[in-house]
């Protein structure tokens, strides 16, 4: 039981204003101090989130690389920026540089079809020796070849083609017929670039999941079917959506999808 005296003391204090007790209390200055203290707290939380995300990314990448090194210690990893490509096809041995029997040099051609997936094979079939870009982004293909002739220095040939999204375009590379009977052509590198994002899938003799030479076999229709060339981590709008890039000639003509 609180005596009356203390009850009155309590009432006096409850009705009191801070100005009576502490006239020099600067509410605004205290608020400034408080808001300063609140900012690092928010920053710390943001830092924690970023640190967690970065740690997770390092763990995933590290784990993947360790697994990959273990599985394919003898092969060079395909250069796919920024995150490496999951393995689709594993090659036990690299083919030696092979001569190209068929080739042609063509330039970009306007669209045949705007319809997406289901029409693209039809569109590709309609124009021979073309490549249909079934992805939503413009794609640039750079094929680097090496020509070797007796008694001459090897000569590098670089061919570049750009194909608009959902359109057909012709693919440029050096034809074997044009280099003479005694010369040979080999594919050194194939660079597949997403024009909008700048991401590049670089294929060479030891790249994974597939070598440049293997992809070239699909380009020249020496092999039929489809092959995973690599993975783009972003769509053309730079939203983080990974998608596989495949080359498919199953229907007769070459399709990027």
């Amino acid at each position, binding site marked *: 039981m609180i*005596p009356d*005296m203390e009850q009155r003391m309590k009432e006096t*204090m409850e009705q009191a204003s*801070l100005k*009576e007790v502490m006239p020099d209390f600067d509410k605004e200055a205290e608020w400034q101090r*408080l*808001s300063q203290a609140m900012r690092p*707290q928010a920053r710390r939380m943001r830092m924690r989130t970023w640190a967690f995300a970065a740690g997770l990314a390092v763990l995933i990448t590290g784990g993947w690389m360790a697994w990959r090194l273990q599985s394919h210690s003898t092969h060079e990893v395909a250069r796919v920026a920024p995150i490496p490509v999951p393995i689709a096809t594993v090659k036990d041995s690299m083919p030696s540089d092979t001569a190209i029997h068929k080739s042609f040099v063509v330039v970009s051609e306007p669209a045949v079809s705007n319809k997406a997936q289901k029409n693209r094979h039809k569109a590709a079939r309609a124009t021979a020796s073309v490549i249909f870009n079934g992805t939503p982004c413009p794609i640039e293909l750079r094929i680097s070849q090496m020509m070797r002739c007796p008694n001459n220095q090897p000569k590098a040939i670089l061919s570049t083609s750009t194909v608009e999204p959902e359109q057909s375009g012709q693919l440029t590379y050096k034809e074997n017929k044009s280099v003479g009977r005694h010369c040979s052509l080999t594919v050194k590198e194939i660079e597949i670039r997403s024009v909008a994002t700048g991401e590049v899938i670089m294929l060479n003799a030891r790249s994974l999941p597939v070598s440049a030479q293997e992809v070239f076999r699909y380009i020249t229709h020496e092999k039929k079917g489809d092959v995973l060339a690599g993975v783009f981590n972003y769509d053309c709008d730079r939203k983080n959506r990974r998608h596989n890039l495949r080359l498919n000639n199953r229907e007769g003509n070459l399709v990027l999808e």
Partner: protein
Amino acid sequence: MRADLVTNMDEARLVRYCKENNALAQKALYNTYAEPMMLVCLRYLEREDARETLMDGFLSCFKNISAFSYRGEGSLKAWLKKIMINQCLMRLRKKQPVFISHTDDLPVEPASTMESVWDTMNAKEIMSRIQALPDGCRTVFNLYVFEGMGHKEIAGLLEITEGTSKSQLHRARQLLKETLLQTSQHIL
């Protein structure tokens, strides 16, 4: 959002905006309760500690407001006061106040002669007398008289025995009586 709208909005909406980390709402809440909460802190702690505790209390409030559910008028103030008192007790624990237990029977204090003196005292004078009490008995006195807690509750909160709580209250009353006597002699 306009600052004046935030200032005049009802508490339920203020809480809702604070839950969304709205800086204007946070400031409005601070402006409303900074002074009454500082008065609470001053009863437990000396000035500088009270200032720090007020800041810690509001930081804790904004951090934990998502867990608070508004239950009508006064509920926000009560919740804030509880936070401030907890912060004060945490700060006091770091100072390790001495709670001396007296096992002898405690006499009931006659208040009659002091009442006239109390009536003449204002909040500042009362506060200075409370602040002059030693940490241990000031804490028990505050919890018993101002927060309306019983000895059992105080004992649980401060991790002391009920007997110690009673003796601390007794000692606080004795000390206050002494200062009031000195004041009354000075007045007379």
